[in-house]
């Protein structure tokens, strides 16, 4: 079955939290919690507050996301 596509948006890391979770501020000012995608963890992409990232948000839960790219 076709899944609904996720929304990809740019954001900025505000805070690093335990468990490779981050607080990300989206361009519209909304703050969401996002965890690091497995692929990025495998390649040890390090992320610190202030980084610009691409997050993927499911349309079902707009408060959580998945970081899929660092710029």
């Amino acid at each position: 079955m076709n899944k609904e596509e996720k929304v990809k948006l740019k954001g900025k890391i505000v805070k690093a939290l335990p468990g490779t979770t981050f607080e990300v501020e989206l361009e519209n000012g909304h703050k969401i919690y996002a965890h690091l995608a497995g692929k990025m963890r495998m390649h040890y992409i390090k992320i610190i507050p202030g980084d610009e990232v691409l997050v993927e948000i499911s349309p079902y839960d707009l408060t959580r996301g998945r970081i899929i790219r660092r710029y």
Partner: protein
Amino acid sequence: MVIKTLAELDGIRRACLIVREILERIRESIRPGISTYDIEEISVKIMERKKVIPAFKGYAGYPGNICVSVNEEVVHGIPRKDKVLKEGDIVSVDIGVIYNGFYGDCADTFPVGRISKEHKKLIEVTKKAFNIGIEQIKEGATTGDIGSAIQKFVEENGFSVVRAFAGHGIGRKLHEYPEVANFGEKGEGEILKEGMVLCVEPMVNEGTYEVKILEDGWTAITIDGKFSAHYENEVIVRKEKGEVLS
């Protein structure tokens, strides 16, 4: 006067995020040489993938899926194959989608390649005017507060604000009550209440604010042929301030 429930607000939020994503993709793909029809095609492809319906198609008989207005066109430009963007143009893209019955409606103006300082300022002032407008939003403020703040800022910068079109309420319909004019006097108009959703959309002209509609029945252009920029976003009215949705 439509006060939205929390669940409705959530649906509108989702619709807006999808519009924002489409606009970001378009920002990346705009370059000299592509036509306004190409821009429409990019957006329609993403809409299909996201399973959202273009909200403008067929609205009051509008023939396009989105509105793409180049240079002196103010709003409602119908995408055409022979309208090709060239270096130095400014293009405003207005997109509306329906997601699960909720409307998302946003617009932004993008530069094509390198543009002159004057036009860069026009785009910046338009966006800033929006931000200044929504700063006025809180429970008990009026639509006239928003309009007068926008008008004052735009005119201080030597531009003019279009009178013929206005912002609007939004939700389960594309245009809902109240109307949010981009000019006016403080304290005029409708009183804002928490839970209302508004589309604030300043349209800023370089020259005069007068516009005329072309023969196709839709495209609005400035009378003096000078450039025009457009910025639109949805805002939820909160107790203390407005919450921007995308």
